[in-house]
C-alpha cells in the first residue's frame, strides 16, 4: 500500500464521517431502534428480573443485529445515487482499500453507538454486571463482522431499486454464527462459565471477514455499476 493510498483511505473515511455527522439521523436511527426494541421486552414479556436476565443476551444481540441490518442500506446507497461510487471504482487506488474505509466509517457511525448504549440496556434487562464486560467484548468483535459481511449484500443489491428484502435474505444466514457465538458467550458469562472459546471464535470470524469481505464487496460493486 503506497502512501497516497493511505491518504485516500483517510480522506474517504473522514468524508464519510463528516457526511454522517451532517446527517445525524443516519447515526441516531439504528441506536433509537436498538433502544426501543430492547426496552419493549420488559413490557411485553415480563418485568421480573430473573426472566429478563434469562433472555437479555439474546434480546440485546438480536436487536443489535436488526439495527445493523437497518443501517446497512446507507453504506453505498448515497454514493450509488450521486455517482461517487463510479469515481471510487475508476480511482487508481485499490477498490478493496476504499471499500474498507467505507465499512470502517459505517461501523464507527452505526456499530460503535450500539456499543455505547449497550451497558444501559443490559442494566434495563437486569443482566448481571459480571456479564457486562463479555457483552461489550462480543459487541466490539461482532458488530464489525456484521458491517463487513453486510457490505457484500449491499454491494450486490445497491443497483436494485427495492433490494431491501433481498438484502435481508442474503445477509441474515451469514449473521447467524455471530449471533449464536455472541449470545452464547454472554449467557455463559452470566452463569459464571468461561467464555474464552466463544470470544476466540468471534475474533477469528472478525479476522476472516476483515480479510475477505472488502475484496468481495469491491467485486460485487463492479457488477452492480455495470
Amino acid at each position, binding site marked *: 500500500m503506497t502512501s497516497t493510498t493511505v491518504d*485516500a483511505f483517510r*480522506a474517504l473515511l473522514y*468524508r464519510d464521517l463528516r457526511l454522517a455527522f451532517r446527517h445525524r439521523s443516519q447515526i441516531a436511527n439504528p441506536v433509537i431502534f436498538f433502544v426501543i426494541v430492547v426496552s419493549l421486552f420488559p413490557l411485553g414479556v415480563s418485568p421480573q428480573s430473573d426472566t429478563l436476565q434469562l433472555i437479555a443476551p439474546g434480546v440485546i444481540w438480536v436487536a443489535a443485529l436488526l439495527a445493523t441490518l437497518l443501517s446497512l442500506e446507507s453504506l453505498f446507497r448515497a454514493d450509488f445515487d450521486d455517482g461517487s461510487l*463510479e469515481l471510487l471504482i*475508476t480511482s487508481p487506488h485499490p477498490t478493496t482499500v476504499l471499500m474498507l474505509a467505507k465499512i470502517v466509517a459505517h461501523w464507527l457511525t452505526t456499530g460503535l453507538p450500539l456499543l455505547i448504549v449497550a451497558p444501559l440496556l443490559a442494566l434495563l434487562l437486569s443482566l448481571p454486571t459480571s456479564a457486562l464486560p463479555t457483552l461489550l467484548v462480543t459487541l466490539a468483535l461482532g458488530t464489525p463482522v456484521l458491517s463487513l459481511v453486510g457490505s457484500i449484500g449491499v454491494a450486490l443489491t445497491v443497483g436494485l431499486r427495492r433490494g431491501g428484502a433481498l438484502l435481508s435474505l442474503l445477509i441474515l444466514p451469514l449473521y447467524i454464527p455471530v449471533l449464536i457465538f455472541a449470545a452464547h458467550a454472554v449467557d455463559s458469562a452470566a452463569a459464571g462459565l468461561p467464555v474464552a472459546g466463544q470470544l476466540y471464535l468471534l475474533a477469528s470470524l472478525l479476522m476472516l471477514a476483515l480479510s475477505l469481505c472488502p475484496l468481495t464487496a469491491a467485486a460485487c460493486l463492479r457488477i452492480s455499476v455495470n
Partner: protein
Amino acid sequence: MAKPIPSKPSSNAAANADLDIAELSVIGLECWRGERRLFRDLSFQLRRTEIMQIRGENGAGKTTLLRTLCGLCLAEHGQIIWRGTPVSENRSAFLSQLHYIGHLDGVKLDLTASENVDFSRAMQISPSDESTSEILGRVGLSGVGNAIVRTLSAGQKRRVALSRLLTTRAAFWVLDEPFTSLDRDGEAIVRELLLEHLRRDGLVVFSSHQTVALGETPIVEFELSQ
C-alpha cells in the same frame, strides 16, 4: 455500425514524432445493453493532444461507450489499449491516468464546494498543485466555496464536478456531456479547461449533442449510429 469521421491532422503532430504513437487504441469493441446490441466492431485511435467528440442520437450508446472506456461497463468483445498495453493487463496504470466525469456529478451534496475539491485532490495519485481557492476561482465558484453544495444551482453543481478536473494531472479525460446545464460562461470555462489540458499533452474523449468549437483546435468526431 459506427464510422469515424476522419479528422484533419493536428498542426503540431508532425513536429513531434512522439505524438504519432497512439496513446489510446480501441479495437473491435462490441457492447450490449440488456438484449440490445449498441455497437460492434468499433475501433479508433487517439494520440496525445487529440480530443474526440462522441456523437449520436439518444440511446445510441454514447454513455455506454464512455463507461466502457473507463472499465465501468464490460465490453462483449474488443480491446482497449493504453500506451501499448491492454488495459485489462495493467488496470492501475491506466486508471492512474484516467479522470471520468459521468452524467451523474459524483458531487457530495452535503459537503461544501471546497470540501468536495479537497476530497477529490486527496484521492488523486498525482494531484495538481493548484490550491482549492484557485480551483474554485477558475470554475467561477469563488464566492460560494463554503456553501453546502445542496444549496447551489444545477449549473453550479456541475461546475463543482468539473472543478475535479483541476485537482488531477491525469492525462486522459473522459467526460459525459460536460456542457449540460451550464450557462454561456460555464461553457467557456469548460472549453478553456479542455484547451489547457490539450496544451499539456492530454487527451480527451467527450460526448455532447451540440456542436462544440475549440477555436483552431480540431475535434475528432465519432458518430455512433444504429
